[in-house]
């Protein structure tokens, strides 16, 4: 025979007296948990709860909680009310009849809830007993791997690098065409160049600075860096200037990003690359750009 409820209560009360600062109700996880406990100590079947007896003990328990100055939360009171209601129903002749003509036990819903809760309680216990990470077992944290060598790594370049590259381009142009002053009537606007650069970068993930400076990359993917010599003379200085300013503007708007590799000693070298920095996919640049300027 299990210990009577009164003994448990007394025991708990004495605990409460001896530990004035850490009054702790035996941990019941709520009214269903308390009911399961009472069902267990009374050694009765969940499916055939003696509602009167269990209900009485349940109320005693709530009273003890109050004696211990623990606020009885609403859920416990609601369950007390449910038990009282079921008890009264069981005294009355059956009112409700199921589809098959049989009486519906007024306890049925409570029984179903208790069974379901019990299932999860068992699963929870099982879960709690598993080997737990950082309590029972520990994982290898993984190695802080060396980063790839600098030459493979893309790094940001400063505006200085960009300007320097631009200066070199202009210098190269002076070399090839010192006498060319035939200014073509071709109107090149910064806006056009911004749109062209965005288009080019949308078509390809990364494009070389010099290629973009000269002309937009065709969508079919020609104009790969280093594939062919760039004919600066045919491009014309206005276009190069407009392209460069367009790049600066796009950089300022954080629409594109500029990268350059470094050599073994960490000095920036090699071609400068441009990439889209932002999700510009859902934006009509051609339409928006006039506002940007």
């Amino acid at each position, binding site marked *: *025979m299990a210990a009577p409820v009164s003994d448990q209560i007394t025991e708990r009360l004495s605990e409460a007296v001896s530990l004035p600062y850490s009054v702790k109700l035996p941990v019941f996880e709520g009214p269903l948990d308390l009911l399961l406990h009472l069902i267990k100590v009374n050694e009765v079947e969940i499916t055939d709860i003696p509602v009167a007896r269990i209900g009485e003990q349940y109320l*005693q328990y709530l009273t003890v909680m109050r004696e211990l100055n623990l606020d009885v939360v609403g859920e416990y009171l609601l369950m007390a009310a449910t038990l009282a209601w079921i008890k009264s129903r069981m005294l009355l002749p059956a009112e409700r009849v199921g589809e098959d003509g049989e009486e519906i036990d007024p306890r*049925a819903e409570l029984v179903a*809830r208790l*069974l379901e809760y019990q299932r*999860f309680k068992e699963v929870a216990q099982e879960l709690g007993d598993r080997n737990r990470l950082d309590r029972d077992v520990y994982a290898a944290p993984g190695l802080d791997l060396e980063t790839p060598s600098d030459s493979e790594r893309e790094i940001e370049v400063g505006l200085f690098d960009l300007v320097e590259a631009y200066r070199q381009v202009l210098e190269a142009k002076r070399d090839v065409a010192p006498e060319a002053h035939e200014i073509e009537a071709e109107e090149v606007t910064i806006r056009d160049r911004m749109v062209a650069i965005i288009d080019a970068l949308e078509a390809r993930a990364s494009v070389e600075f010099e290629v973009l400076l000269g002309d937009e990359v065709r969508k079919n993917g020609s104009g790969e860096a280093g594939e062919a010599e760039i004919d600066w003379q045919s491009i014309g200085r206005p276009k190069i200037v407009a392209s460069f300013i367009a790049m600066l503007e796009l950089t300022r708007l954080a629409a594109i990003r500029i990268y350059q590799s470094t050599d073994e000693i960490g000095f920036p070298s090699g071609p400068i690359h441009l990439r889209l920095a932002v999700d510009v996919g859902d934006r009509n640049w051609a339409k928006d750009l006039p506002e940007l300027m």
Partner: protein
Amino acid sequence: MDETEKRGIAEALILASMEPIPVARLAKMIPRCTPSKAKALVDSLNADYVAQQRAFEICEVAGGYQMRTHPEYKAYLAQLHKTRPLRLSNAALETLSIVAYRQPVTRGEVEQVRGVDAGPVMRSLLERKLVKIAGHREVPGRPMLYSTTKRFLEVFGLSDLEDLPTLRELEDLKPSDPIAAEAESATEGDDDSVVMPEPQLVDADVSLEDLEIAGKPH
């Protein structure tokens, strides 16, 4: 490349990875390897570890392989970590179980099962990243849905959700009693049963003496 080399690569990758490596990814990183071959490599490594009484093994957690120490060393390893082990109350474990089996689940559904407010516990599970918000249920009020995380699998050493005791086993816990079956149907939309009397039925003024008498064994 022979098996020994591949095994070495698998071992190095699993040791060095910061998180569990899925078998498909592992296979991709080893030259001329398939997932089933990768699995065989891991099995063979684990067999080695057992034979050589290593303090660790390769476990399958959260859909990937990870090197983990054996539980028998837990007392020593506890000294190593500054953070205290993740403790979970019964309330947290119960809530976690309900979320795990019923996901995606609303807070109300959890409360229905446990019979108590689930808010604070749910919050603490969210903070510990064992549970995450998984959208809304498209019903009036659009309640938030919760589901378990990858971290949940990692913490409990589960390879995936299938690794939980199956729902069938859960069903087995239920007795074949007809009342239970009936009760199931009764819970579904039988509004009559929801009418509750006022809670003032509880007599709060019972003294301890009354209790002693009432509580005496019958």
